[in-house]
């Protein structure tokens, strides 16, 4: 009986304490909500509008002024690995082959991927009824350390996939100067 009374008193005092606390005005409670709301607002806005598609790709392209393009459809980042060429696409697919590539069979997966992307682009263009003659199908962001022998297999794969126009990406300087049009590097 005594233990039941103790339990009742305990819960009564707890209830009274909670009731007393709820009567006190609490000013801090909106701030955690505000913090969470603000953070998710900022992150969502950045993901929706401002994400740089080149983030996570390691190709450092040549700094040279050239005309911008807004109609490219397939973007490839090309870098050199350990005696290999690594191609990363804008949908995060990675293709890798040896520098001493001799057979086009080694590019079969890459060529198949390019063909599939082209079919998707053509279907999309048909559905939206919009196709540009000047549209560049593939943009290649080639790392500055690469040589032409690294790029040749990619051009072969483009031809296999039926792609007739492509482009190399350059980084436009913030302030273009007349010296930007002169080659400073050496061919060796």
């Amino acid at each position: 009986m005594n233990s039941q009374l103790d339990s009742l008193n305990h819960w009564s005092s707890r209830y009274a304490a909670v009731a007393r606390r709820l009567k006190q005005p609490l000013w801090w409670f909106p701030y955690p909500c505000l913090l969470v709301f603000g953070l998710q607002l900022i992150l969502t806005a950045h993901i929706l509008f401002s994400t740089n598609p080149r983030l996570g790709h390691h190709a450092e392209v040549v700094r040279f002024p050239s005309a911008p393009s807004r109609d490219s459809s397939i973007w490839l980042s090309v870098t050199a690995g350990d005696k290999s060429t690594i191609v990363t696409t804008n949908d995060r697919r990675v293709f890798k082959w040896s520098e001493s590539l001799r057979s086009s069979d080694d590019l079969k997966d890459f060529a198949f991927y390019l063909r599939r992307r082209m079919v998707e682009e053509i279907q999309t263009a048909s559905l939206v009824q919009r196709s540009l003659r000047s549209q560049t199908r593939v943009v290649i962001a080639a790392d500055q350390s690469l040589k032409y022998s690294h790029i040749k297999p990619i051009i072969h794969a483009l031809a296999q996939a039926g792609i007739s126009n492509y482009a190399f990406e350059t980084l436009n300087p913030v302030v273009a100067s007349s010296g930007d049009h002169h080659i400073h590097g050496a061919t060796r």
Partner: protein
Amino acid sequence: MMPLSKTSRTKRRSSDEQWLFRALGVSFFALFVILTASLRVVTLSARYGIVPLEIPVLQSHVPDPRYHQFEEFSRDSVTNNTSALVLTVDAFYFGDLSSFSTDFSKSDDKYSVPHKDGAPQLDRLVKEMSAWVTDRSKRSNVPLSPVLVMIPSGDIPMPILIEVVAVLRSSSLFKRVILSSGMS
């Protein structure tokens, strides 16, 4: 309600500071500004451009039975007289495409512009190619063509190749550049 002692009343007054919540609001605002600026710096894309190139295709007639009867025409063609430019680590060599294929053994139909200290002399190349194209057009009645077939050797660095293509396209000579498989 229980009456509060003088100490408790003083404690409540001193803890009930309204400036604390204003400071919290300002702090959150500053935090969001810093986060927004940081994310903007990380995710902001630089300005990029492209240097376009082409792969030649074979012309094929595909009949269009629909109302508009659309028909595709070729704009330019690659012929024996199409200009060709070979880029090696030593020099530029240019001439007709036939001079680097069927007439490769001939030596009087090719022209060279050597590199100066390893750096390509693009201004000189554009001037000499312009003079050659104009002279060929007058002398041999070869029509001016905006197509250039470029044959780089495999050890040419990509930045050099891209800049050479960009400069040639920006000149009035060529608007369409085709990269060949190159020389190994």
